[in-house]
């Protein structure tokens, strides 16, 4: 992977909340195109902030976030965000639009003609396992949680963005649906080869979807390793968490 271009890079990034609380205190990593980084850590450790710095919902207080080699502050935020798909736990589907119009929204904003948008929407619904004929004209409130999350994924990749951000995408689903979607998304990701940054609470999910796992603690990225090595990490906090989860599994 040494030859691949760096898609997302953090250089000494600090982020201070408007309230004065320091959320990130010096985060650095670089993520080659096509790799996926799964960020785990306790609530409030700064994981979601890392995502929001990538698509410039926030600007760093110090340091630099680079996307495709260019600092985010030098990107036009609209152009930058159109190149980054975003999937969040609450899904954020537009309740007043049908599935078809939700999924086709970014291509429409990008000025694609109607035929091309419609073709793309069908293709995407197929891709996420929702038969287009049955789902095109439904509204989000007519869907189950799992179906909504599939639509969310389809919408995020609609204009084929090179980077995908996911914030606990499967967190609100029941365990069976979650396991299904994780597996399907893994297959999808192996076909699409997006650069993926994923925030999760779930270590098995991180191991399944991440080519690297990053442990965030108190605003720092304290460990960033491929799954196998991560599970053997000798970082005390990581060990403590892995032990706690293993005990819970046996109990």
């Amino acid at each position: 992977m040494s030859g691949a271009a760096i898609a997302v890079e953090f250089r000494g990034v600090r982020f201070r909340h408007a309230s004065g609380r320091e959320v990130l205190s010096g985060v650095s990593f670089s993520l080659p195109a096509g790799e996926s980084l799964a960020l785990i850590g306790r609530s409030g450790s700064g994981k979601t902030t890392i995502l929001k710095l990538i698509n410039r919902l926030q600007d760093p207080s110090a340091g630099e976030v680079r996307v495709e080699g260019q600092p985010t502050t030098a990107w036009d935020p609209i152009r930058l965000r159109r190149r980054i798909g975003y999937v969040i736990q609450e899904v954020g589907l537009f309740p007043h639009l049908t599935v078809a119009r939700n999924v086709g929204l970014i291509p429409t904003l990008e000025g694609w003609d109607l035929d091309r948008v419609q073709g793309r929407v069908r293709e995407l619904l197929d891709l996420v396992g929702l038969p287009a004929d049955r789902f095109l004209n439904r509204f989000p409130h007519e869907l189950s949680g799992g179906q909504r999350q599939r639509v969310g994924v389809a919408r995020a990749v609609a204009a084929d963005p090179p980077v995908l951000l996911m914030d606990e995408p499967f967190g609100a689903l029941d365990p069976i649906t979650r396991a299904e979607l994780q597996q399907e998304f893994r297959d999808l990701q192996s076909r699409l080869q997006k650069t993926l940054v994923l925030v999760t609470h779930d270590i098995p999910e991180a191991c399944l979807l991440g080519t690297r796992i990053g442990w965030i603690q108190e605003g720092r990225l304290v460990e960033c390793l491929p799954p196998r090595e991560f599970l053997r990490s000798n970082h005390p906090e990581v060990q403590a968490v892995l032990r706690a989860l293993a005990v819970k599994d046996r109990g």
Partner: protein
Amino acid sequence: MDLMEFLASHRAELLQMTGQHLFLVGLSTGVAVLVGIPLGIFLVRSPHWQPPVLGAVNVIQTVPSLALFGLLIPLPLIGGIGAGTALIALVLYALLPIVSNTVAGLTGVDPAVREAAVAMGMTQSQLLWRVELPLALGVILTGVRVATVIGVGVATIAAAIGAGGLGMFIFRGLAMLDSRLILAGAIPAALMALIIDFGLGLIARRFGAPGGQARRTAA
């Protein structure tokens, strides 16, 4: 001579006053919509303006309508006797429900939906026109409905400063102690309010307003 006969014999006058009444209410509500909705959008974008502006429209609403008409008469340019002054007062009254419901509707949009829209690269105006306004439309229309119904009532009092409308019958009836005249003004005005309330309620619910009675937020 009972009421029906009276109405029949005064049909032309009744139609004319109903027309004047509708004109007063329609024009004032229209202006209040054109001013109030943009003002509400501005207040959501610049929340530090909300307390003074919402406070001001609230205070206007608390001034008794007869007093407001009276207060406007001596003012240069906008004052005086007649429909112009009445229209200004009616617009001021209609502003509160429209502005406050626009603010409430837009602030009520699910933050996750707004964040998703911004994160997918919508511009401010795309966010407003494609997401925020459509989602707030039901609540905004409810505000328009409340404003219109209030306007029908207040416009009856506008007759006191010579603006015409169904209030003419009522004031004349009061002066002549003639209950038929009072009813000839009051019943059509009440019917007008009910019909408008029902019609706009149907439209508002079609766009996702909460059902039931017209609702006033932040009154």
